[in-house]
C-alpha cells in the first residue's frame, strides 16, 4: 500500500531530524498538557462553586409570594379602560405563606418521573435572644431524611448530628456565625422569639457551616414539627416545597409547568443563581482561550520546523519526484510527518496533563468555609481530553499543510540542475 510507504518515508524524515522533531512535538505536548490541566482545574473550581450554590438550592422551589393585587377598582371603570393607571388603592392581601394542599402537591410531584425527590420545608423569620440583644435569623424546619437525601446537609454539620433533630423534640442546629455571636455551644439552650411574639426555648444539638458568612450568621435548622410548633401552626403547615430533578437543565421549563399546574410560585435554580452561572461561563471561556492560544503557538512551532525541514530536504524531494512520486504523494508525506508529530506530542500532552492534574489534585487546599474540601478540586472530564487532542491534531495538520503544499510544488529539474 502506498499509504504505508508514505508514512514510512515520513517516519524516516523525522528520524533524520529527530532533535527538531522532538522539539516540535514538545511544543504540542506542552500546549495540550496545559490545556487539559487548566480546563480541569478551572472546571473543578467551577463545579465546586456551583456545587456550593446549586447543591444547596432546589432545582425547583414552590412557594407563595406576597404580590401586589392585580385587581384594582380603577380597572373596572370603562372610562379609563385605555389609559395607564397609577392608582393602586388595594394593598397586597395577606394570603399567608402557607402552601395549601401541600400534601396533595407533594404526592403528585413524587409521582413525576423527572423528579428525584421532594423535600417540604417551613421557613420562619425569628429573633434569637441573647442577653438583652435580639439577633434576626431564620428557622428552617426540615424533613430531615428528605433534606439529607437532596442536599447532603450532614456534609456541612461541623458538630453534632443532623438526625438528632428528629430524635429529640425542641432541638435546633444553628449556623456557626450565629453560635459565635451568641457565645453558645452544643448542649446549650437558645431562646427564640417569633414575629408574632411567641417565645420558645430550644436545645442546640449541632453547629452548621455552609461556607457563606451571610447564611452562617442567620440560619438555623429544626425539624418540621418543631418549626410548626414555634409558629403555632398545624402539622400541615408548609411554606416551601423543594424539588430536585434528574436533569438540572430542565428546571426552567419544569418550574413554569408547576406554576401553571398548581397555581403557586415556582422558581428554578438557574434563575435563582444566574450570577453564578455567568461567573462559571467567564472562567470556562478564559481557560479555553488560554489553552487554544498555547496550541496555536505550538502550531507555529511545527510550521517553522517543517519549513526548515523541507528546505533541507529539497534534494530528497527532487529524487522522490524523479523516481515516480507525484506532487500529491509528497504533500501527503509532509502532512503525515506533521500529523505524527501532532499525535505523538498530543498523546504525551494528555499524559502529562493528567499527571499535572493529579498533582494539583493532591495539593492541600483547606479553608474553614469549605469543610468537605481537602485538596484543590480537579475535573477529570474526558471531553477536555478529547477536545484538547482533536484541537492538537487539527492545529498540526493545518500547520503542516502549507509547508506540505510548498514541498509538493518543488520542481525537481530546478534542484537537479542546481547541483
Amino acid at each position, binding site marked *: 500500500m502506498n499509504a504505508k510507504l508514505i508514512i514510512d518515508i515520513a517516519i524516516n524524515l523525522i528520524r533524520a531530524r529527530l532533535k527538531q522533531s522532538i522539539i516540535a512535538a514538545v511544543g504540542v505536548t506542552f500546549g495540550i498538557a496545559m490545556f487539559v490541566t487548566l480546563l480541569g482545574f478551572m472546571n473543578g473550581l467551577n463545579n465546586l462553586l456551583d456545587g456550593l450554590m446549586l447543591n444547596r438550592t432546589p432545582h425547583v422551589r414552590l412557594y407563595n409570594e406576597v404580590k401586589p393585587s392585580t385587581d384594582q377598582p380603577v380597572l373596572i371603570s370603562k372610562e379609563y379602560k385605555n389609559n395607564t393607571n397609577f392608582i393602586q388603592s388595594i394593598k397586597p392581601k395577606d394570603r399567608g405563606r402557607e402552601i395549601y394542599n401541600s400534601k396533595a402537591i407533594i404526592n403528585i410531584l413524587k409521582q413525576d418521573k423527572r423528579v428525584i425527590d421532594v423535600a417540604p420545608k417551613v421557613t420562619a423569620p425569628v429573633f434569637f435572644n441573647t442577653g438583652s440583644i435580639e439577633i434576626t435569623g431564620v428557622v428552617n424546619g426540615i424533613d430531615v431524611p428528605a433534606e439529607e437525601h437532596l442536599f447532603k446537609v450532614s456534609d456541612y454539620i461541623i458538630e453534632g448530628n443532623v438526625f438528632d433533630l428528629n430524635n429529640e423534640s425542641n432541638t435546633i442546629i444553628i449556623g456557626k456565625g450565629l453560635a459565635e455571636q451568641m457565645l453558645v455551644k452544643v448542649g446549650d439552650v437558645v431562646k427564640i422569639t417569633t414575629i408574632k411574639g411567641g417565645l420558645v426555648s430550644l436545645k442546640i444539638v449541632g453547629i452548621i457551616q455552609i461556607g457563606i458568612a451571610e447564611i452562617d450568621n442567620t440560619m438555623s435548622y429544626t425539624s418540621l414539627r418543631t418549626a410548626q410548633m414555634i409558629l403555632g401552626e398545624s402539622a400541615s403547615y408548609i411554606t416551601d416545597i423543594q424539588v430536585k430533578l434528574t436533569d438540572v437543565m430542565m428546571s426552567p421549563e419544569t418550574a413554569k409547568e408547576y406554576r401553571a399546574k398548581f397555581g403557586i410560585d415556582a422558581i428554578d435554580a438557574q434563575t435563582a443563581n444566574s450570577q453564578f452561572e455567568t461567573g462559571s461561563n467567564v472562567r470556562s471561556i478564559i481557560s479555553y482561550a488560554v489553552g487554544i492560544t498555547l496550541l496555536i503557538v505550538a502550531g507555529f512551532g511545527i510550521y517553522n520546523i517543517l519549513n526548515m525541514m523541507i528546505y533541507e530536504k529539497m534534494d530528497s524531494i527532487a529524487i522522490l519526484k524523479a*523516481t515516480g512520486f507525484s506532487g500529491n504523494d509528497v504533500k501527503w508525506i509532509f502532512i503525515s510527518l506533521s500529523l505524527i508529530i501532532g499525535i505523538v506530542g498530543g498523546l504525551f500532552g494528555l499524559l502529562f496533563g493528567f499527571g499535572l492534574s493529579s498533582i494539583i489534585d493532591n495539593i492541600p487546599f483547606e479553608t474553614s468555609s469549605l469543610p468537605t474540601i481537602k485538596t484543590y478540586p480537579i475535573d477529570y472530564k474526558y471531553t477536555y481530553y478529547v477536545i484538547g487532542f482533536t484541537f492538537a491534531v487539527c492545529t498540526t495538520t493545518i500547520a503542516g499543510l502549507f509547508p506540505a503544499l510548498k514541498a509538493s510544488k518543488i520542481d525537481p529539474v530546478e534542484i537537479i540542475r542546481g547541483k
Partner: protein
Amino acid sequence: MTLLKLLEENNMSNIILETKNINKYFYDPVKFKVLSDINMSINEGEFVSIVGKSGCGKSTLLYILSTMDTDYEGELTINGVSLTSKTDKDLAVVRNERIGFVFQFHYLLPEYNVLKNVMLPGIKLAKHSIQEIEHKAMEQLRKLDMVDQALKSPNQLSGGQKQRVAIARALINDPLIIMGDEPTGNLDKKNSDMVFDIFNTLVKERNQALLIVTHDPDFAERTHRTIEMADGRIIS
C-alpha cells in the same frame, strides 16, 4: 505480403519514445531558445547516445524526455501514449513504471540505506511483494558488484559506488527506457566499462531502450546510434 505487414506492425510497436517538433525557451535573464525542432525516436532494444558541446541543451532535452519538465512546445510520446498535457499524477506513474533515470550526480536518499534506496521505486510501484523487490534489488546490486555495500548508508560510499547504486535503482522496475545524464562521468575506466556492459546486456537480453548523454567518445562509439547536438538542434 503477410511478412511485410507483420514487419510493419512490429516496427510500429517498436518505437518506445518519439518526439515531434519539441521547442523550449528559457526566459531568464532574456528569452532564449534552448531546443529547436527536436524530432527523434528510439526503438525497443536500441542503445542511443547523445553527444554535443557543453551547454548545447542535452540535459534540458533529457529532462523533457523524462517527463520531469513539462514546460515545452511540441509532442512527446512514450510507448505510443502522448504525454503532452498529462497531469502531474499520470506523469509520476509513467516515471515510476516506464522510465529509469540516472543523474549526472548521484542522487540518493540519505535517510535510507543502499538497499532501501534501490527498492523504493519498486515499493512505490507496488506490483510485487516487498520480498520480491528486495530479492530483485539484491540481484541488481550483485551485477554492479555492490552487494557487500547493501546495508551501508549512501554517505558512506564513494562517488562511483553511489553512481552504481543510482543505476541499480533506475533498473528496479524494468523500465521501457533508461535515461542517463553522464552516468559514467564520475567513474574510472574499469567501472565505466562495467556500466557499459550492464547497459549492453539490458539492451540485448531484456530489450530495454537506452538513451545516454555522454562526453566520452569511446562510450558513444560503442552504442548503436549517436545523436549529435549543437546549439539546441540535432545535427546528426
